[in-house]
């Protein structure tokens, strides 16, 4: 009896992944728990361990796309059986092939209409980022020859656009962002917060950095405030998954960390039950490991809310995109001294803008407004967070 090797579902929103490598050869003995293959999926590359033992037969090629549950190989009782095995059911192969073909293959054109392009002209055109099919060919029967491509290149100012394949982390981000916009009803609301007391709280924490063992940041304080409100408002800490509304029993806040080429969102779990110091230590650890490329999928799984601090880039407000299946995300801008009216007086206060996007399918405007109001109240009087301490 063969034991199927399948693509596991590693996250709630995972639908497919790229098989990036096998660590075992055809006919090789595999023990349960040994790393068997690697996949690239929701923002990480992940090693997958064998969930059975036997002699391996690989059905899937490296760098092919597979849906969750797809059979990519099998484990057999004997080496001979493994080496003799033909492959998975035809349906699975067709599905994968169709998926790959849809992405890679150019649109098929009836033979009579096919643009005639010499292999050399096509190669030079692709290198220069030119679509040779769009050129007027001067060769026999309108064939595009090298001279036609050279003429376009010669007439161009500058070197022309650079092209590279959409792949890896960027491809994953692109897909997630499109899915976010296409699958949810996003509503963004803004609120101005007086950060004077948070500034004072942080100054106090920084003054006592040696004693606390960590330098607490504004982000830590805002994140903690979000966690407190989310714990009080389970309607926000919920997701629409398929035909169900799932209310999460933990408050896990993802923190957007920008990398050189992209952005990932490691998660601080149970943030409502952690102290500011614990949150600060964890945030620093996650950010360091994220930039070193050392995060595992457990570090990024299970987020129920996301916090994105774009204030460090000088931004005031933006319209953040949801990180599905989460229903809310908060973007925070820079804290800047502004002229505001207080008790009929013009005063200068350190102000910050909250930019909050909600999934309007699940969260009505009134609920969103209440969340915003509670969060603002906590940030304007952070001492009240103490009142909830146990």
């Amino acid at each position: 009896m063969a034991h199927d090797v399948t693509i596991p579902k590693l996250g709630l929103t995972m639908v497919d992944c790229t098989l990036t490598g096998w660590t075992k050869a055809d006919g090789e003995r595999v023990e349960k728990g040994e790393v068997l293959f690697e996949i690239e999926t929701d923002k990480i590359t992940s090693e997958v361990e064998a969930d059975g033992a036997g002699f391996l037969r690989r059905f899937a090629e490296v760098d092919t796309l597979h849906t969750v549950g797809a059979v990519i190989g099998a484990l057999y009782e004997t080496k001979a059986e493994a080496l003799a095995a033909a492959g998975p059911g035809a349906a699975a192969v067709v599905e994968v092939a169709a998926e790959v073909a849809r992405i890679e293959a150019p649109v098929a054109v009836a033979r009579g209409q096919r643009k005639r392009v010499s292999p050399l002209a096509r190669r030079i055109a692709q290198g220069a980022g030119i679509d040779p099919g769009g050129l007027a060919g001067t060769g026999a029967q309108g064939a595009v020859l090298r001279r036609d491509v050279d003429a376009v290149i010669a007439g161009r100012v500058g070197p022309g656009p650079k092209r590279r394949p959409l792949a890896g982390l960027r491809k994953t981000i692109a897909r997630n962002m499109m899915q976010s916009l296409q699958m949810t009803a996003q509503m963004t609301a803004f609120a101005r917060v007086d950060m004077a007391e948070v500034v004072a709280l942080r100054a106090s924490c920084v003054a006592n950095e040696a004693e606390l063992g960590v330098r607490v940041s504004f982000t830590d304080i805002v994140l903690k405030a979000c966690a407190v409100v989310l714990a009080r408002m389970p309607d926000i800490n919920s997701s629409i998954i398929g035909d169900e509304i799932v209310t999460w029993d933990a408050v896990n806040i993802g923190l957007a960390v920008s990398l050189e080429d992209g952005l990932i969102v490691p998660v601080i779990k149970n943030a409502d039950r952690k102290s500011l110091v614990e949150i600060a230590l964890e945030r620093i650890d996650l950010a360091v490991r994220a930039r070193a490329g050392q995060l595992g999928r457990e570090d990024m799984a299970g987020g129920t809310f996301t916090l994105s601090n774009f204030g460090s880039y000088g931004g005031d407000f933006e319209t953040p995109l949801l990180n599905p299946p989460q229903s809310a995300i908060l973007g925070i801008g820079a804290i800047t001294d502004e002229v505001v009216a207080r008790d009929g007086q013009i005063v200068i206060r350190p102000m910050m803008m909250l930019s909050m996007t909600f999934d309007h399918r699940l969260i009505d405007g009134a609920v969103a407004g209440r969340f915003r109001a509670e969060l603002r109240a906590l940030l304007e009087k952070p001492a009240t967070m103490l009142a909830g301490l146990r």
Partner: protein
Amino acid sequence: MPTKTYCWAIIDAMREEMARDDKVFLMGEDVAAAGGAFGASRGLLDAFGPIRVRDTPISEEIIVGMGVGAAMAGRRPIVEIMFIDFLGLCLDQIANQAAKSHYIYDGMFKMPLVIRTSSAVEMGIGPHHSQAWEALVGHIPGLKVVMPSTPRDAKGLLKSAIRDDNPVIFIEHIAMHRIKEEIEDDEDFLIPIGKADVKRAGSDVSVVASGLMVARALAAAERLAGDGISVEVIDPRTISPLDFDTISASVSKTSRCLVVSSSHKNFGFGSEVAAEIGERCFFDLDQPVRRLSPPFTPAPFGRQFDQFLNPDTDAIVAAVRDLMA
């Protein structure tokens, strides 16, 4: 450097090699007393005597068969088959004996046999004396097939063929016997088998031409140069093994290729070159590879049909212009 005709280059090569190595000997129809049907063994009987320069009966199978036996027994025979068309009579000795002896006897016997033969394409001497069979023998593993187009190449390649331990089919062309060229006066002047020669360097089109077609390709290149078209002419010199490295390097540079041959297109030399270029140079090609060959029909008697048979300079010029269009 002395100037020699193609015919005397052949004679010089044999004389030098026979003087150098007394295992080398020549046999064939009329090679001794008559000095060769086409005069390509003049003086050798006087120089080396009737043991090493031998006339044979008119029996091609026996001529090659004796050569095979002598080669296995340690001699280095040169046998002459008057016309390449007659290889049909001795193909068993060539393809099934000479070509396979290294393989069958695991190298216990060497086969240093040279079969000199002549093509008479375009001489008007009818369907049995006008064929170009280099592709036919080029198809047989174990044989080397050499087809020089100049006196210097002929001398250097024949000397290499005689010194080679493999059976070599050495194809001359009777019409080229009178052309002249300067040749190094050096008894160890050799041209390696399996190495093509760029007869004219160019940058726009590669013309691969063999045998009789080389001179026409060069004439066409000269004419096209007047129009600013730069033609590179490559003479493979050896049909098997064919020097694809030189050919593909040229085609990768020019992006256009024409193969000119006096053998038929069907399953022929041009097909082999075009197919290999397709594999090696596909992404460098700006035009399809073109072939020029005689029509797929026997050659008639008389020369009144020449213009319909082998590619001439006009046809090569036209084909190159087409590739540049």
